[in-house]
């Protein structure tokens, strides 16, 4: 374990400059480069879907709608949702950050199957291409849920449905392969000293996520394939005109898509566990409860899909059963929050950009999780279902929590990935703008939803009383967009003009902070031995390097 940043030559060999040329990136087997390519792709898709989000918000400034027709609006919310879910949030933390960090955290040279890893990335690209084809050949207006029979009705839904379904099918494989890769990597490539309960919590979260990816995603694959066949040939499985059952489609769809919510949120929770511990230099509180709660969420997550269907016509008995199981998921989520708070207690809390995102996550996820209680409760869900209350709730969870966890992770590991420091002050300003903008945008949506505003409405001429909430929401989304633009500017600026990053700028204890920033091509010459990755007492601040070093008087594990 001598690869710490004792000396930093002006230009040293690292994964970014080890080989050159575009082909050395597109066909690389290096997990770090694949992670960076995922990051670039996911952020580009985020920009695209974000533009659609802004179109939606500006359309709704007036009850009659400002600039889109009904059809255009229906396309805008469908494309926004489908891209955000399948191309951005699901791959964001596992594929972009996970790929980069996971093998280094294990002290490994790569994931277990590097070629499969590259293939996953290419599948993502093909998935994107099919989505772009869908936009080109007539668009999609089914909503990201592709509900039947609308999605199989060629006369009314648009021509891009089949390419979009194929794209989603392909993205499913990308997700399955990433999950498989991570499961095997965590099982087989853990270093000496890293027992299951010494893994960084990010790895527990990634592991739980990978289980869901491998077990749930095949179901959506089959479902979408059936949908393609139903739409082209007409086999009568979902089409009521041929004796099929449209509610069956909803069961199939949510059997994947509810666990998929945990594919989005669990890895972000893993990131937050790291953020909270590292940036308060405090041993994570209740390690085992946090680790087990990730597994519990993954398991319970499979049994609650029916709560999306309380008003679909499924039997009252099933509704009651799904309601009680749904409540059970709230417990492990609450446990995580309490443990994070206890970690902050008596910590040494640095309010840097990453930590602002981490604390934002706790704030926003509290609201997102608690409003889930209204929706799990049968009597109130009947009223709230398919209203803006639901829209606000899942944006608090999927955007305010999953994506903000992702942003926190980007800032946390940016110096490691790029080898440069970003401007901390602009980072803080941007993070605070994102926090304020997000809450203004979506809190107003809770209020209009419970008051009676249905979702997926291009106009609301009969309900002009909701205009004031929409104006607030649009104003908030503008602040949010400003926050993201500032973030993009200072991050890009740091790539070219940023200060050289030390190996360990935050005082992290897990293995990725023990190799140089950016890491060498092969991460570690030999796999290091590890101890307790949340014991920060072995570190000390080094003024010349502007980073943390291993204390001279403390031996490395295994030495």
């Amino acid at each position, binding site marked *: 374990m001598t690869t710490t940043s004792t000396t930093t030559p002006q230009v040293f060999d690292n994964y970014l400059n080890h080989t050159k040329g575009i082909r050395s990136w597109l066909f690389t087997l290096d997990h770090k480069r694949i992670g960076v390519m995922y990051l670039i792709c996911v952020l580009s898709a985020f920009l695209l879907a974000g533009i659609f989000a802004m179109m939606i918000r500006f359309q709704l400034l007036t009850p009659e709608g400002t600039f889109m027709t009904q059809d255009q609006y229906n396309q805008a919310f469908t494309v926004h949702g489908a891209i955000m879910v399948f191309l951005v949030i699901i791959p964001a933390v596992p594929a972009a950050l996970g790929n980069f960090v996971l093998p280094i955290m294990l002290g490994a040279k790569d994931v277990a199957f590097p070629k499969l890893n590259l293939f996953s990335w290419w599948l993502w690209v093909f998935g994107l291409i099919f989505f772009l084809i869908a936009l080109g050949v007539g668009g999609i207006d089914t909503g990201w849920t592709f509900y039947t029979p609308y999605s199989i009705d060629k006369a009314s839904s648009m021509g891009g449905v089949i390419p979009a379904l194929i794209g989603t099918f392909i993205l499913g494989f990308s997700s399955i392969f990433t999950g498989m890769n991570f499961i095997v990597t965590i099982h087989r490539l853990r270093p000496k000293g890293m027992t299951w309960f010494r893994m960084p919590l990010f790895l527990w979260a990634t592991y739980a996520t990978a289980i869901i990816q491998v077990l749930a995603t095949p179901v959506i694959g089959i479902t979408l394939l059936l949908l393609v066949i139903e739409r082209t040939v007409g086999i009568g499985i979902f089409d009521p005109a041929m004796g099929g059952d449209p509610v069956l489609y909803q069961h199939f769809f949510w059997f994947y898509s509810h666990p998929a919510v945990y594919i989005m949120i669990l890895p972000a929770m893993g990131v937050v566990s790291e953020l909270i511990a590292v940036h308060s230099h405090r041993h994570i509180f209740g390690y085992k409860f946090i680790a087990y709660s990730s597994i519990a969420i993954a398991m319970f997550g499979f049994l609650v899909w029916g709560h999306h269907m309380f*008003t679909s*016509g499924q039997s009252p008995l099933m509704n009651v059963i799904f309601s*009680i199981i749904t409540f059970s998921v709230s417990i492990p989520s609450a*446990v995580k929050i309490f443990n994070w708070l206890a970690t902050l207690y008596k910590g040494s809390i640095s309010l840097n950009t990453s930590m602002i995102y981490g604390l934002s996550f706790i704030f926003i996820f509290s609201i997102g999780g608690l409003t889930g209680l209204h929706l*799990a409760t049968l009597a109130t869900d*009947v009223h709230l279902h398919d209203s803006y209350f639901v829209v606000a709730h899942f944006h608090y969870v999927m955007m305010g929590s999953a994506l903000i966890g992702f942003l926190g992770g980007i800032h946390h590991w940016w110096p490691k990935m790029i080898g440069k420091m970003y401007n901390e002050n602009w980072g803080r300003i941007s993070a605070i703008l994102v926090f304020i903008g997000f809450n203004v945008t979506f809190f107003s949506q809770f209020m209009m939803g419970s008051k009676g505003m249905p979702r997926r409405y291009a106009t609301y001429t009969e309900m002009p009383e909701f205009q004031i909430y929409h104006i607030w929401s649009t104003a908030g989304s503008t602040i949010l967009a400003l926050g993201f633009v500032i973030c993009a500017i200072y991050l890009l600026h740091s790539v070219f003009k940023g200060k050289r990053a030390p190996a360990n700028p935050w005082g992290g204890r897990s293995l990725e902070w023990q190799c140089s920033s950016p890491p060498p091509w092969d991460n570690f010459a030999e796999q290091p031995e590890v101890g307790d990755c949340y014991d920060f007492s072995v570190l000390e601040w080094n003024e010349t390097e502007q980073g943390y070093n291993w204390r001279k008087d403390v031996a490395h594990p295994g030495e």
Partner: protein
Amino acid sequence: MFSILTSLLTTTSQGAPANFWLPKQASTVAESVDLTFFVITWICYFFFFAITGSMVLFMIKYRRKGHEVVADGPTHNTPLEIAWTVLPLLLVVVIFVVGMRGYLNLQEAPEGSYEVQVTGQKWSWTFDHPKYGATQVAELTVPVNTPVRLLMTSNDVLHSVWIPDFRVKMDLVPGRYTSLWFEATAVGDYNLNCAEYCGKDHSRMFATVRVVPKDEFEPIMVKLASEYEDMSVGELPAYAINRLYNRCQSCHSLDGTTGTGPSFKGLWTRVKSGDMLFTSGERLSDLYGENTTYEVPENYIRTSIVNPQGHIVQGYLGSMPSFQGQLKDKQITAIIEMLKHLDELTDDEGNITVNPDGAPRQ
């Protein structure tokens, strides 16, 4: 904060007005639904302020000044962790039970509820009152303080009835029946929205629920069922397209697309010229004239409604049922007049452009 407090207090009275979170209460179930909502909301306030409050406190109190690495404090405390696992569990069980009881209340319509049959189709609502033989489109009139059960289905894709002021919602699924019930507690007009995305004009799929005093309800229904009787021939087309066409709609389009039966668009022109071939091989124009089957074109349409199997147009299966006895003579006349004046009643895309009284539709 104060507004939230006052709003909580006001919800406890019957028929409370809109408050910070919820619209006004106008059905018997609204009060208990709202009570459940506010119990949960107050639990949320408690946990939210406890969580964020302690978070902000720790942020300030334990803010890092320099570059300290060591922070003490416990790494775990099993009794505490078990406590904050079990206590929320008990709490959510209570919420579940309260919510389930309220829900089961929403499910069972009382015996003898007044029944309305609801059909959703892109993008309009049709309400049939079997008891009076009356049909309403985009408007549902019900008596106050009377349990009403909606028996619902869809002609095309999924839709969902949502009446926010009543706190009720249920999807309409093609090929099966679903139902919901409510008892309105106050006379007035209430929004009914489609809550399940159904395509282009989803956001325009709107209806008004008109809750009227009990003694006014029956006269309204009787008038609705017989309103055509006093109409002049000139008023009949607008009546027919609004009140009768919904029964034809699933098979006969207005925009020229072929369904189970021929489109109504341009149908009158073809009938008048007799430009139609039947499965029997006969041509319609050969059947016109004195002492023939139909004498005048109007008779052909009339016969097609009361005895659809008589002559079936080539290319169709002839699956139309007879409307003998279901439509009065004047209603059949109204349909014939509607076909004659279809251009004045619809736009090029087959959207209906007039109201029952003949005024242009918004």
